[in-house]
């Protein structure tokens, strides 16, 4: 669906260098701290910025060769922009109707009402969460094959985040659809992504299947004595702590079986990213 092949984008004090792939039928997550390069990667994916190297292909076509018809198969949420705030949802209906061949007006209105979005209020008077919900519903409204969602959960409360994630799971029930989603909230991605890319300082630090990450990664918390006696072969990263060392491994079971006395925490995206980005 999407392929970023060694793309490079240089700014005065930031350089993005990354490769990633989003496969058909999969939800791929991009996680990283604020300023790690997530939005830049998304902008490159969408052709909103010119890249200095590498290539971006979507549906097998170079990004510059995508037609309006190709773009109809995409639904996009951007972190910091959206529909004009001077319009209402009611104003948007004929716009979306004219824009997309497969726009489902009835479903869109029903979804807006279900998520309690006022149809006649100006979007500029919406809360951040309401704006985000609107963008997501618009992205879901026209039978897109691919969703590109940059921080769709930012500004949403817990209930709204759950509602959104349910919508995305429902969307993925149809085969051959894909989502690429970024977030700095790891729990959002753990529950929905098939694989996750971790980005820091413009570089992909790790790419792993979510199941592998959650089931096989672990964080060993050991004293100095224990650390010296451990087999270091499967450590991905170690970090000095007050109590001794934290060690990130992708062979949690190995250490559980061979060193039953040490403390091993189950892997989570938060822990992995914390360890990889220090």
């Amino acid at each position: 669906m999407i392929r970023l092949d060694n793309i490079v984008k240089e700014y005065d004090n930031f350089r993005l260098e990354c490769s990633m792939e989003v496969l058909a039928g999969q939800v791929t997550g991009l996680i990283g701290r604020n300023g790690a390069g997530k939005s830049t990667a998304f902008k490159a994916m969408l052709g909103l910025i010119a890249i200095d190297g590498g290539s971006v292909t979507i549906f097998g076509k170079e990004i510059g060769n995508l037609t309006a018809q190709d773009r109809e198969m995409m639904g996009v949420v951007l972190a910091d922009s959206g529909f004009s705030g001077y319009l209402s949802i009611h104003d948007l209906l004929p716009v979306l109707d004219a824009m997309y061949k497969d726009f489902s007006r009835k479903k869109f209105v029903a979804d807006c009402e279900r998520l309690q979005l006022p149809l006649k209020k100006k979007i500029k008077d919406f809360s951040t969460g309401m704006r985000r919900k609107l963008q997501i519903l618009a992205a879901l409204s026209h039978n897109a094959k691919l969703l590109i969602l940059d921080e769709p959960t930012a500004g949403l409360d817990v209930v709204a985040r759950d509602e959104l994630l349910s919508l995305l799971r429902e969307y993925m029930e149809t085969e051959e659809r894909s989502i690429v989603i970024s977030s700095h909230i790891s729990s959002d991605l753990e529950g929905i992504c098939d694989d996750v890319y971790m980005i820091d300082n413009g570089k992909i630090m790790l790419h792993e299947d979510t199941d592998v990450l959650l089931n096989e990664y672990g964080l060993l918390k050991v004293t100095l004595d224990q650390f010296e006696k451990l087999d270091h072969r499967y450590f991905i990263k170690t970090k000095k702590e007050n109590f001794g060392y934290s060690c990130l491994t992708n062979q949690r079971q190995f250490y559980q079986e061979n060193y039953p006395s040490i403390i091993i925490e189950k892997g989570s995206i938060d822990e992995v990213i914390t360890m990889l980005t220090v």
Partner: protein
Amino acid sequence: MSRPIKSLIIKDLKLIMSQMRLFIAIIIVWGVIMMTSIGGAFFVGYIALMFSFITLGTFTYDETEKGLAYIFTLPIMRKDYLREKYLLGFIISTLPSLVVSLISYIPFLVAGTDIPFLDYFLSSIITIPVVLFLLALQIPLYIKFGQEKRRIVTIISVGMISACLGALGSLYEMAGGDRMEIISSIRGLNIWWMTLLIVLVTIILIMVSYKISCFILERKQF
């Protein structure tokens, strides 16, 4: 009309209707005052100019909160966006002016004037191409510089164009020509030739302006 352009036109008309009602009302009130005190031809120019501002206003609404970036994630190519703006500018500046021109002839008709309708009509709408020319000058500046910087650049560019024309005139005179002769020969044209000349020049300028806007927008990053 393609789907992207149609959807953008609807969006802009919705924006205009929701945001510019007051502006349109002021234009009309002023227009009525001017029509009764000054006369139809000037009023048509005034309407065309004021409505062209409305088109430019839609750029500002698109730019707000980085909205332009979002527009280009939708099935809208950058050329579609520009085509829509030029089309909207043309429709919005021209249609109300044509209607006003026709309406403003009614008092002459009632009074039983001997002014031929076509002469009146052409003399009143001749200002429309001038307004379209101004619009064609403004759109690339909006695309390149945005709402704020554009004002300064407009002043500078109008100054530069005037200076260039002045310089060309001076060079022509230095080469033995007489610039007043050219002006007189243009003035000497009958209204049909004059209209044709103005329309042709305007079409060429709009095409050049569109090409420049495309060049700028295709390279713009968001």
